């Protein structure tokens, strides 16, 4: 009886996850972003072979599973506003339901706006107890058995890894987003984020195994914009090279990187801070730094608020230098622009470092 009900639920679920009809046009003043998040293997690896995941037939490799580049698993997509003031936090987002069972939490990745709640529901006969020690939300829930639930609120943005105390192998990741403009990809890799105020944003991905992708995007008034994203290992330095990271204490480095100011900084450092500025690509670099400067400008304390914050000072300096670079480009003075960008890059690296120290 129960099995039949499950099968029926499965069929209904399949029906629901069939390709969605084009979404309704967004309301005036808002727009939507949708697309597919795909994954790209190393060059030299045959994507055809890896598509569909799969296993080896040899005994020693019986546990080995290929990364499925066709379906890399759930990816969280977040939109972080740039330029405008942050809207009020969502006051009444529906609870996100997570089912706890012997094989793990389902789904294994959820996005909750800051202040939102996750309801854990036990699905098998074994007891479960969710807990986390992530900085953004340390907690220990109630012990729940079949049919019972336990609800946890997530007030602060961050990445929260949740374990089951009675079976800590499987893991749940809760991405607590500062805004409600976030989504997790479905089984076919598609995502859609609607009702987003038109304007400039930074799109950022989160995947359990692949590095985040960050890209500036624009939400257009009254329509859906399709943005396909590719995740993978492209762009990581070779073993010989190192990243521009300063020493910090361990808990500091383990802290969430979903924080918007930090996200803008990493974005800027990643795209403009690591290499010598190429005079041929000065315009592109300036645009990236401008996005970073706007983002940082929004999240640093106001001029009269924390006068002593070196991070705030460097943030304003960065914004000023990017403006100077943009001026140089506008006047067609490439040398002036490159010089201003080099200075901006120094402020940017300084910012990055101070942020770690002050945060």
């Amino acid at each position, binding site marked *: 009886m129960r099995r039949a009900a499950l099968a029926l639920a499965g069929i209904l679920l399949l029906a629901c996850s069939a390709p969605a009809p084009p979404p309704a046009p967004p309301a005036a003043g808002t727009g939507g972003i949708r697309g597919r998040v795909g994954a790209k293997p190393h060059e030299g690896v045959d994507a055809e072979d890896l598509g569909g995941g799969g296993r080896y037939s040899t005994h020693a490799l019986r*546990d080995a599973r290929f*990364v499925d580049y066709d379906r890399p698993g759930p990816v969280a997509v977040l939109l972080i506003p740039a330029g405008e003031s942050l809207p009020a936090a969502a006051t009444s987002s529906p609870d996100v339901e997570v089912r706890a069972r012997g094989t793990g939490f389902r789904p294994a990745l959820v996005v909750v706006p800051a202040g939102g709640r996750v309801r854990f529901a036990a699905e098998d006969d074994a007891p479960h107890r969710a807990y986390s020690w992530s900085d953004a939300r340390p907690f220990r829930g*109630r012990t729940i058995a079949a049919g019972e639930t336990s609800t946890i609120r997530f007030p602060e943005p961050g990445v929260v890894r949740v374990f089951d105390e009675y079976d800590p192998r499987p893991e749940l990741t809760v991405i607590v987003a500062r805004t409600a403009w976030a989504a997790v990809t479905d089984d076919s890799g598609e995502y859609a984020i609607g009702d987003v105020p038109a304007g400039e944003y930074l799109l950022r991905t989160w995947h359990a195994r692949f590095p985040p992708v960050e890209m500036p995007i624009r939400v257009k008034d009254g329509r859906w914009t399709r943005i396909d994203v590719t995740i993978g290992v492209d762009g990581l330095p070779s073993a010989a090279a190192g*990243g521009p*990271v300063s020493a910090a204490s361990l808990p500091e480095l383990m802290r969430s990187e979903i924080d918007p100011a930090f996200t803008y900084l990493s974005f800027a450092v990643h795209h403009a801070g690591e290499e010598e500025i190429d005079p041929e690509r000065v315009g592109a670099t300036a645009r990236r730094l401008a996005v970073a400067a706007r983002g940082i400008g929004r999240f640093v304390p106001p001029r009269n608020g924390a006068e002593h914050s070196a991070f705030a000072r460097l943030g304003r300096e960065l914004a000023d230098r990017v403006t100077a670079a943009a001026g140089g480009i506008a006047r067609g003075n490439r040398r002036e622009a490159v010089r201003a960008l080099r200075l901006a890059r120094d402020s940017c690296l300084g910012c990055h470092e101070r942020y770690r120290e002050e945060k």
Partner: protein
Amino acid sequence: MKRPILLLVMTAAVALFPDAAVRSEGNAARPAAGAVEGVVAVDLPEPPPGSATRGAERPDLRRSGPHVVYLERIGGELPFPVPEAHPSISQRDARFRPDFLAIVAGQTVDMPNDDDITHNVFSYSPPRKFDLGLYPKGEKRSVTFDVPGVVNIYCSIHESMNGQILVLPNPHYAVLAAPGRWRIEDVPEGEYTLRTWSRRLPPLERRIRVRAGETLRQTLVLPGRLPEEDEE
């Protein structure tokens, strides 16, 4: 029934190792160095009936590891010789072996491919981002880790290959495969933050002073503070 026993063990541990400095006898450490030792204990209740029936390989937080106890010097680290040895993380049967390693900042880790198939190792953790590319059986590639922190490593071909390298700020640390005793010798005297790091339990931190020629005893009870709550 197990819980009273665990409590008893912990009480005994606290009695044996009061958190106080005592002169150690026959100290062989350098004049300016002391030692820190103690116990890592895990205080969690016995899982309720029903949960024990599932797979025998289910890790039990009360008995599993690894746990690392380490020191961070307040006011900045002193110079120390980086160990010349290259610890190794092998790729065998499509697993990283071991899948957890604690090293000191500046140390190099060798990552040989001991399988018949091609592998890769990459990381995008803030302390060390790298991509070793694809490499075949018998080849060995190496990475130096200069910045302390947690580095998660992955293989871009195999989903089952996940590992973790904990890069520590100095050589004053102890790795425990399971809760139990630890001892860190040869610690230059001074103020430190004593910290724990565990894969699935929250870290503890405590400010301590290491005095020359003395052994400081510390009992570390995990999981420390985790607020219990529920909104229903």
